[in-house]
């Protein structure tokens, strides 16, 4: 089979008279590998004498383990080892801190005690010569527990809840002005409760880890969003020097947050491999994906909003009741958008958290932003009807040049252009503002909109760029491509600096032995690693210039270095462009296989005094069947202001992916727990619904594409999460517009609509 590779289209820049690779809609560098099956994911490395590990899980949701009856399993031919709390290696305590890149996803090590905190918690691991034998062994093992009363119902546990006093260092509750006083004096008052269910990430590639010991060196092929974090945690926990542990994660089949930090199965794989002195592969089943690798916790959000008759917000209160486990203090910070988009002098954002015997929740695409925006943007829609104002006008009324939270100017904000361009593409003007007035082929038609937002986040990141003597180049960084396009965009950044085609550059990522990079979470990879790649490429060119001006055989010998620049794979003397030398000749003549530049870039203070935040405007059209209550999203438009776009094609794909995931949040996704046992009932892709192609409408994603130079040297802000943030609200608002029915509880299923239709 031959693959047609599209030739890249790049912009000609008149100023530099060179090709602008940044922004060009290049095909994915890893596309061919993935479509031909050559891309190796964590479970795809065929190693000799591989052992297969299958976790044994607790049937009980709380209490303690009495014993594991392993005799029958141990007799099974091919069974090699049953790892239990009785024979597990002692794990060393670690710092468990995000800042030091040692964050555990579940704040407890596996098999170190007999306590049980949730159904599905690992109580052991069956290791065997084949996967089937290991599965059969795990099935034969009887887990005997002493069950205690489990906390499984949020409402019942409410009296035992706690009020967190900070969210990542920001003190809680967030208070501005005096909400109570302002609300009681305001002209228009609205109150409503919005609820969102537990959701699971369900990436197509399950969590997987292949652990290989080579003497006292450990290699883990791990599906992770953070190779450096995984390396640190595993090394510290097993008491190994960090340089003895290497994490490889070349490809990740989706993460959406659940692969951000290390979960216990990774340690089980490493411990078993250490005991057996053979490679061990552990791949979680779809059912295990529902128990102990995180989820988005449910929220119950009480909102009160006060406004003038003209639609100026005077007071907002946003109280979120959410859930965590007995192991960690996770907070789904749904109030974030409420305190950071619209200017409102009186505000109260608070939280209450209930502990349940469920696994620990974790970050799931736009954690807090998309749950919070569902509530806030729905309530603003309700207010627009109360005030008889266009929903966009209401939002424009409440924007400010300064961030409401920090009262600082935006580093760069084009939110108004998002509304403008979005409503033009979507055809917002065609909308009859009155609900239940638009119909098409027997369906009720509704149009809704919502604001999207995500804060600008960046962390220190490092990269190395090598120019090789064959005229090609390499970019190396211990960041990882979750399927988002990082392999491609990092090449484009290097190409623009080195002035060579990105097809002559290879990105090498997903390996903890490369220069360190942060977690691919918080939409920060481009803004953190991108500037490091740029700087490393600049250093590589600089090093090459230094060699050439000291090389007496070079036509650039003794020329002033500031007058030499790279162009089209050559170094060129500015004052006499006939004096050029191609990269590879300089290297070959000096007997160098390559020359490199390495850079570690920390966020500088150029954004000090500014608030960095991305915004967007999202629009949805729905059709509702008047007799069946079935809802289909028929069109979506999203326009985002996320700074500079590195690759129009991969950016658009990522935004569209986020928007389709938003349809899932709006209409389908809900995790159901058995209220008696605490086990997940929807632990498979038949019962946990996500949108299929037939649910995915025409989606248009567009970008303002204006750089934010205060934020970093590339002016890029990242866009992994913003695409999902406004979809649930835009859809709910469209459903209201179609039917006159306001659904404040996600997902919006036909059952919830029908009683009103």
């Amino acid at each position, binding site marked *: 089979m031959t693959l047609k590779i599209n030739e890249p289209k790049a912009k000609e820049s008149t100023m530099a008279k060179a090709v602008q690779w940044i922004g060009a809609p290049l095909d994915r560098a890893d596309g061919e590998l993935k479509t031909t099956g050559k891309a190796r994911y964590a479970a795809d490395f065929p190693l000799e004498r591989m052992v297969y590990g*299958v976790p044994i899980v607790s049937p009980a949701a709380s209490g303690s383990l009495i014993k594991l009856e392993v005799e029958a399993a141990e007799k099974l031919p091919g069974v090699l080892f049953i790892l239990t709390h009785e024979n597990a290696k002692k794990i060393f305590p670690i710092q468990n801190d995000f800042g030091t890149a040692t964050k555990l996803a579940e704040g407890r090590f596996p098999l170190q005690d007999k306590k049980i905190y949730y159904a599905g918690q690992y109580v052991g691991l069956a290791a065997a010569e*084949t996967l*089937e*034998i290991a*599965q*059969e062994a*795990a*099935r034969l093992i009887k887990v005997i527990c002493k069950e205690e009363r489990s906390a499984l119902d949020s409402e019942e546990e409410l009296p035992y809840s706690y009020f967190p006093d900070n969210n990542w260092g920001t003190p809680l509750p967030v208070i501005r002005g005096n909400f109570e006083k302002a609300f009681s004096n305001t002209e228009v008052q609205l109150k409503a409760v919005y609820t969102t269910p537990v959701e699971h990430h369900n990436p197509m590639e399950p969590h997987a880890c292949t652990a290989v010991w080579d003497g006292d060196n450990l290699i883990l092929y791990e599906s992770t969003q953070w190779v450096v974090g995984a390396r640190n945690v595993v090394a510290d926990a097993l008491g190994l020097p960090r340089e003895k542990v290497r994490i490889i994660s070349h490809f990740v089949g989706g993460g959406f947050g659940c692969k951000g930090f290390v979960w216990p199965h990774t340690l089980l794989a490493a411990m078993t491999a250490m005991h057996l002195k053979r490679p061990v592969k552990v791949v979680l*089943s779809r*059912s295990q994906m529902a128990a102990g690798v995180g989820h988005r916790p449910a929220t119950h959000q009480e909102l009160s909003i006060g406004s003038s008759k003209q639609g100026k917000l005077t007071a907002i209160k946003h109280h979120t009741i959410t859930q965590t486990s007995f192991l960690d203090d996770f907070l789904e910070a749904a109030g974030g958008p409420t305190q950071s988009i619209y200017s409102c002098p009186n505000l109260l954002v608070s939280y209450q958290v209930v502990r349940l015997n469920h696994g620990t929740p974790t970050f799931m695409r736009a954690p807090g932003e998309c749950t919070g925006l569902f509530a806030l943007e729905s309530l603003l829609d309700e207010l627009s009807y109360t005030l008889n104002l266009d929903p966009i006008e209401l939002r424009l009324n409440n924007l400010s040049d300064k961030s409401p939270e920090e009262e600082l100017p935006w580093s760069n904000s084009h939110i108004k252009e998002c509304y403008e361009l979005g409503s033009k593409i979507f055809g917002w003007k065609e909308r009859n503002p009155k609900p239940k007035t638009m119909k098409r082929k027997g369906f009720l038609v509704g149009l809704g909109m919502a604001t999207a937002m995500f804060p600008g986040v960046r962390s220190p990141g490092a990269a190395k760029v090598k120019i090789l003597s064959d005229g090609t180049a390499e970019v190396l960084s211990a960041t990882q491509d979750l399927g988002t396009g990082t392999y491609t965009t990092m090449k484009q950044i290097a190409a623009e600096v080195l002035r060579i085609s990105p097809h002559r550059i290879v990105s090498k990522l997903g390996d903890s032995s490369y220069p360190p990079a942060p977690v691919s979470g918080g939409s920060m990879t481009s803004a953190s690693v991108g500037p490091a790649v740029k700087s490393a490429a600049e250093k590589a060119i600089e090093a090459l210039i230094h060699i050439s001006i000291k090389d007496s055989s070079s036509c650039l010998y003794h020329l002033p270095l500031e007058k030499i620049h790279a162009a089209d794979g050559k170094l060129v003397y500015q004052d006499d462009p006939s004096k050029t030398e191609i990269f590879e000749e300089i290297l070959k003549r000096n007997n160098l296989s390559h020359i490199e530049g390495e850079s570690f870039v920390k966020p500088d203070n150029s954004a000090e005094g500014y608030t960095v935040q991305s915004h967007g405007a999202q629009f949805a059209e729905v059709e509702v069947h008047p*007799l*069946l*209550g*079935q809802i*289909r999203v028929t069109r979506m438009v999203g326009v985002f202001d996320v700074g500079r776009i590195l690759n129009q094609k991969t950016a658009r794909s990522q935004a569209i992916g986020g928007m389709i995931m938003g349809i899932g949040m709006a*209409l*389908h996704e809900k995790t*159901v727990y058995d209220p008696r046992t605490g086990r997940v*009932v*929807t632990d*498979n892709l*038949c*019962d946990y*619904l996500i*949108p*299929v*192609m*037939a*649910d995915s409408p025409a989606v248009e994603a567009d970008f303002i594409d204006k750089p934010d130079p205060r934020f970093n040297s590339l002016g890029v802000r990242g866009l992994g999460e913003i695409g999902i943030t406004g979809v649930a609200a835009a859809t709910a608002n469209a459903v209201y517009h179609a039917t006159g029915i306001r659904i404040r509880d996600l997902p919006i*299923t*036909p*059952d919830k609509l*029908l*009683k009103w239709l």
Partner: protein
Amino acid sequence: MRAALSTLKFLEAGSLSHAFKIMKTHPGIMPTAGCTDIYVSLNFGTLKVREFLNLWGLSELRKIQMKGDYLSIGSLATYTQIIHSDSVKKWIPMLIQASSSIGGMQIQNRGTLGGNIGNGSPAGDTLPVLAAAEAVVVLGSTEGIRRISFNMFYTGYRKNAMNPEELILSVEIPRIKSQQWYRKVGTRAAQAISKIVMAAVLSKDPEEQQDPRRIRIAFGSLAPTVIRAFRTETALAENGNITEAQKTLLSEIQPIDDIRSTALYRQTVAANLLAEWWGKVSPRSLIKS
């Protein structure tokens, strides 16, 4: 926990008579074809059976052919085969609609009509079609061949009138001189297990106007088995009053709340679907004054 495949016995039938013999000599063995349901239950660890008989190679059970005044569809005919069959398209197009709504293409390539019947899920997508079509199920064993009306086939939740050693050989569908109608309602637009399924036929043939069987309505996902709404059919045949028919329908279904739907939704939508269908098909001439 998933059952280990190496612990399962999988016997191969060389011929139909061989299959009959194996069924007789291996009590408790489960006949299989496309395995689209069996793999799911094995994966969930809910299937207790450990011995299976593979029928997939018996091509004589895969034929779709006209036999006099009925259409015979072999039990191993896949949904893909049914979707592309001209005979099915002419004779019973609502079966094509039902088959197209099942799973994705991979499932349609493996899943069989006989499997859908044998599995007997109350949400089985083709089952309301067979009920409304008054199909006949042909069963075979070493004892010989027997026929049973599809509407007598199920005796309870996933229970049927087959003897343990019998195999489903084919389904015979009599001629339907009627307009056919099929609707599946799911939470998402495709690859969904239904919240409710309805199949209905209504004859416009003047010769059949006195025949009480000219209206036939069947539902899936509303009761422990697929059901024919016999009393609703009679109510409509007698006076064509849809409001009364809807009331009758609600008295003959027993929907439940589950993770796919609420009972209330199923009741309401069953009544709405009935009205939608009746609104489209009922000619005034049918209604007795």
